[in-house]
């Protein structure tokens, strides 16, 4: 069982610089064809200062930093048992190339279902930019299946 003492645990802040080549790579990987995500002229014509981060891109922050791996290790969830249950984003402000986004998360709930056969960890995050403006709020539900 995952120790409920982790409820309230704050993860170290993950800092993600938004870089053009990374966004272009991400666009290629998801088959994105809208030039606003790959072409700076199209992005500027759409009113952005540079390429915007796609809607789900900020999830990369805690993967890049290692905070996600560290959390799984702390909670003793092996990757073979890990499932992504739910993911939510609430958007406040665009993140574009040149911005540096900081993601700060805490564990807000841990519970189980089916007599412990499935355990759930809820993580909520705030993503802010270099001007300390709120960019997005994220909520993840991680599932450990036994």
């Amino acid at each position, binding site marked *: 069982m995952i120790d409920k003492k982790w409820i309230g645990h704050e993860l170290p802040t993950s800092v993600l610089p938004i870089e053009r080549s*990374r966004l272009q*790579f*991400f666009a*290629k*990987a*998801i*088959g*994105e064809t*809208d030039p*606003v995500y790959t072409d700076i002229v199209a992005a500027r014509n*759409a*009113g952005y200062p540079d390429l*915007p981060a*796609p*809607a*789900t891109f900020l*999830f*990369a922050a805690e*993967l*890049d930093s290692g905070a996600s791996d560290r959390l799984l290790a702390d909670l003793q969830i092996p*990757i*073979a048992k*890990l*499932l*992504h*249950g*739910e*993911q*939510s*984003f*609430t*958007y406040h402000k*665009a993140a574009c190339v040149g911005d540096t986004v900081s993601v700060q998360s805490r564990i807000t709930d841990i519970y189980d279902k089916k007599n412990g056969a499935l355990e759930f960890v809820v993580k909520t995050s705030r993503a802010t930019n270099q001007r300390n403006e709120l960019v997005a709020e994220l909520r993840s539900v991680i599932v450990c299946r036994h």
Partner: protein
Amino acid sequence: MNPPTFDTVQVGDQLPVLQLPPVDRTTLALFAGASGDHNPIHIDTDVARRAGMPDVFAQGMLGMAWLARLITGWVPQRQLRRFDARFQGITQLGNAIRCSGHVVEKLEHQGERCVRVELRSENQFGQAKIVGEALVALP
């Protein structure tokens, strides 16, 4: 197609469907690198089999990124206020994912005219992979 506006959009309206090609190993490898999700269960068959899976399978966030493409193919991303996904099933190699959505409610949210859209991604056999919801502001 004219950009959707609050007055022209009606409950029940369908978003233009986004049909993806079948998932292959290259797609998973590229997404691993681009997304930062280096979990080998998605890119290394040996690791997937040791975990009891028949083979590598798609990252959940790849499916969510495709659903985001469905939304931003309909309205500019700056109009997206909220995006929720519940992962329903594993997307296997060879699955050709179809993303669809329809308007279920017109509402005012924090002083803005918005619509609530129900989202679904499924494979070619009609099995749900993600169900979700988006809140979109419309001019």
